[in-house]
């Protein structure tokens, strides 16, 4: 007779087979369906999605305070969220739900705006006079988003970043070299930094009152989109050789002096209500070709090469002011053209 222990093991094995085999059969997917896996970083930000075959559907990077740099497909092309369909998760910064209409992050007690790194309402926990970090009740994670997160919108939590930081200190001989688990608990009760409150705080405390409407002429923000007649002349795209630039010069001048501007895909067409360019018609347009094309157009219009210095704004004949703005902090390179006689202003962005 078999010992009781062996009988028990055999019965358990049999039960496991009975349960596991149909379960395995259930894992077989219906045609046209798929399982999407979301991968996150140490803060809980979703950084990649893959399917059940291991294919990457998208990946994205998140800036420290949570602003996304945009989803990139496996082929390396950046798309808007809409194009990824069901592969887009509702989870966002630090694993919280995101309102895709506004891109605000819902942190349970409050909404958080990753663009400015601030909450839109004050901390419901209140202020403690013993902790100056609590005085700014709109700040996020003690203004230290790599080290802290805010799981509930009420209190910061010291997490994995801190653990790794202390581990690193230990490995490198810096700091005390020990992970102090007590600090995690302690920081659950910590609040917010106090460096920003006055104006924004006051504005936020005012709540989201109805925004005033103006009876004056005002600007017509994008209202005239498509209504104005502009040339769709991609003057600078791919322009590189001198011969072509010389040709472009005459044509570009003529186009601009006739009131037909240079870029394509006009957006943000508006009448400027106040300031130096009052009553001018402004529009933003874009074309391709990056810095080379921007410089080529600048040369074509002004006969000068941009230097990156203050001399890169030229007033040329026909009442035109042409400015070159290099790529850098301001994003892609741009040419800005003020046409004093036609009262138009165009900002042309040169995408790669």
């Amino acid at each position, binding site marked *: 007779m078999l010992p009781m222990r062996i009988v028990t093991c055999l019965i358990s094995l049999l039960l496991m087979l009975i349960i596991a085999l149909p379960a395995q059969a259930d894992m077989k997917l219906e045609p046209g369906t798929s399982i999407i896996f979301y991968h996150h970083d140490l803060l809980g930000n979703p950084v990649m999605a893959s399917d059940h075959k291991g294919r990457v559907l998208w990946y994205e990077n998140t800036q420290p305070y949570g602003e996304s740099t945009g989803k990139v497909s496996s082929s390396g092309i950046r798309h808007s969220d809409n194009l990824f369909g069901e592969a887009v998760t509702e989870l966002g910064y630090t694993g919280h739900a995101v309102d895709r209409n506004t891109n605000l992050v819902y942190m349970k007690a409050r909404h958080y705006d990753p663009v400015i790194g601030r909450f839109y309402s004050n901390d419901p926990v209140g202020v403690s006079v013993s902790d100056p970090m609590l005085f700014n009740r709109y700040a996020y994670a003690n203004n230290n988003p790599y080290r802290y997160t805010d799981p509930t919108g009420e209190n910061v939590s010291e997490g994995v970043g801190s653990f790794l930081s202390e581990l690193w200190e230990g490995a490198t001989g810096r700091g005390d070299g020990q992970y102090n688990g007590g600090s995690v608990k302690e920081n659950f009760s910590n609040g917010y930094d106090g460096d920003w409150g006055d104006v924004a705080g006051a*504005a936020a405390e005012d709540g989201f009152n109805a*925004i005033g409407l103006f*009876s004056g002429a005002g600007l017509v923000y994008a*209202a005239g989109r498509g209504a104005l007649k502009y040339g769709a002349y991609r003057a600078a795209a791919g322009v590189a050789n001198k011969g072509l630039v010389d040709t472009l010069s005459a044509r570009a001048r003529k186009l601009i002096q006739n009131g037909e501007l240079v870029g394509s895909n006009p957006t*943000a067409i508006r009448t400027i209500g106040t*300031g130096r360019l009052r009553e001018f018609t402004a529009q933003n347009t874009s074309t391709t070709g990056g810095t080379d094309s921007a410089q080529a157009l600048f040369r074509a219009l002004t006969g000068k090469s941009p230097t*990156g210095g*203050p001399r890169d704004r030229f007033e040329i004949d026909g009442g035109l002011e042409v400015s070159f703005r290099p790529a850098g902090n*301001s994003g892609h390179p741009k040419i800005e053209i003020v046409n004093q006689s036609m009262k138009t202003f165009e900002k042309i962005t040169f995408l790669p």
Partner: protein
Amino acid sequence: MIMSEIIEQRVVWLLDGWKRGLISAEDVHHHAEKWTADERIASELNENSAAAEILSQLDILNQQLITSEDIPEMLEFIGESKKNASEARNRWEKYWSQIDFSKRQQTLAEDVFYAC
């Protein structure tokens, strides 16, 4: 919460950071350009709001010769427009009409950001 309110908060945040010297005119310009180019913001923004007006100005602040001197007026415009929109608008237009832009252009002529 509608987009106009969100943008208003962002604009206030930008102006406050600029006023405190935490960010530069170029940073302000960069953010305003990015938000202006965002189609969702453009389509949902209340075009008559103070936030929309200021955002459109910051989008071209180098051409408009807007400097940190103008920040208090911009914040005032946002605040006052909630109380009396037409009065705030009048004050706003009056403020800009009394600026000597030729003088500003001379002052800013050597500033790389404004001049280029």
